[in-house]
């Protein structure tokens, strides 16, 4: 199972007497609708495990980037047929405009680099859509962010 720790969403768990359990998570994309479900799942899971006082707190800094996805998270994504992200671009100065086709990802099914980007946005904001010209299959990739 891919966990929120694998994805770099979990920033900390603190169980101190008097305060209960405080779980700190960080949002991925500003509008990611999964954040609310993740918080609800964390609450429900800890309550079922017997913790009565549970707080889920948000941490905005440092901002999440795909570099927070662990090596284990990346291999789990690839095993699920989702190409893991490359290293997030680190820039100094204004972000340059990208015109024309962006680079694609290696096919998570057959491993071929012979793939092309078909859509910058896929079923969720964090993924793009690609097609492998070697095996012919479409696949999703987590966008480097």
């Amino acid at each position, binding site marked *: 199972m891919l966990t929120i720790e694998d994805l770099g969403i979990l920033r900390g768990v603190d169980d101190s007497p008097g305060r209960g359990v405080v779980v700190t998570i960080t949002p991925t994309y500003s509008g990611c609708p999964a954040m609310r479900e993740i918080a609800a799942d964390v609450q429900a899971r800890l309550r079922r495990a017997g913790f009565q006082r549970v707080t889920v707190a948000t941490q*905005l800094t440092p901002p999440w980037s795909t570099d927070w996805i662990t090596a284990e998270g990346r291999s789990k994504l690839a095993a699920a047929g989702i190409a893991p992200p490359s290293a997030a671009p680190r820039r100094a100065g204004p972000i340059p405009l990208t015109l024309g086709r962006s680079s694609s990802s290696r096919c998570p099914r057959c491993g071929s680099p012979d793939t092309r980007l078909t859509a910058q946005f896929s079923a969720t904001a964090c993924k793009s859509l690609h097609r492998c010209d070697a095996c012919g299959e479409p696949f999703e990739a987590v966008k480097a962010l």
Partner: protein
Amino acid sequence: MSTPESDFDDNPYDLLADDHDEGHRWAFGTGFTDPLEGVDTSVPAGLDPAALARYCLALGDDALIYSHRLQQWVARLPELEEETAVANIALDLLGQARMLLSRAGRITGQTEDQLAFFREEKEFRNVRLAEHADRDFAELVVRMLMFSAWRLALFESLSSGADPVLAAIAAKGVNELAYHRDYAAGWVVRLGDGTPLSHAKTQAALDTLWPLLGELFRPDPDALAAVDRGEFDAVLDTVLATAGLDRPAAAPLAPVGGRTGSAPPGGRPPAPPDRTGRDGVHTEAMGYILAELQSVARAHPDATW
């Protein structure tokens, strides 16, 4: 891929259905968790809290109103790929709006829902570019290029700004807006450099929207950062040159004149003689947006479900 666990329900839809009492539903009136829950939102010394709240509200309103306009396109776009792109861009902006409205509301003692659903038109501070109704896909992408190029440059400078919360919200937004700008720029090039018809429609979209640009660069006493018009123009000129489109020469949309001298409540300085969206003066389109955006919340102001 997931490990089956009989004692725990991994299906979020089942969880939504189960937790009636905890309000985990996606709709107005569900007691949404504040997106800044657990974040230290104290205002740093040296910043005027009222000015900071007004500025966050203005940037939040830009995102809220523009997001709503993009949502209206969903199910009317030419291709499935464009549906997912525009819906995701609208979602990013809605997320930015929620955090910015919450930032403002923590200072003024209001919730994001109160600010989004229970303010009058003249209290919305978004620029008029955000409320424009796109007549066709060319206007959609040209307007997105203008808006996202400006907002990206603004957020890049805000991410090292004086308020740490606004800086954190901006830093998150920068990565999202870079994708929005590239998406829009790619389409402006494709259409401008496409067929005679697509070129003509894209040039017409530029000519229509150009007067709305001036407002983005008006001095704002509440602003914590500003965009350099020269740098913005350089980005736009790169796209226009690649697309074979002409930079319009149209003058900025005229501000609206008004009485001066009388100080409005809330400690704001007197209204300047020329007012724009930032001062609550909007185009006719704005009333229709708010009617759609706010009608359910206003019909059932205390509803929970």
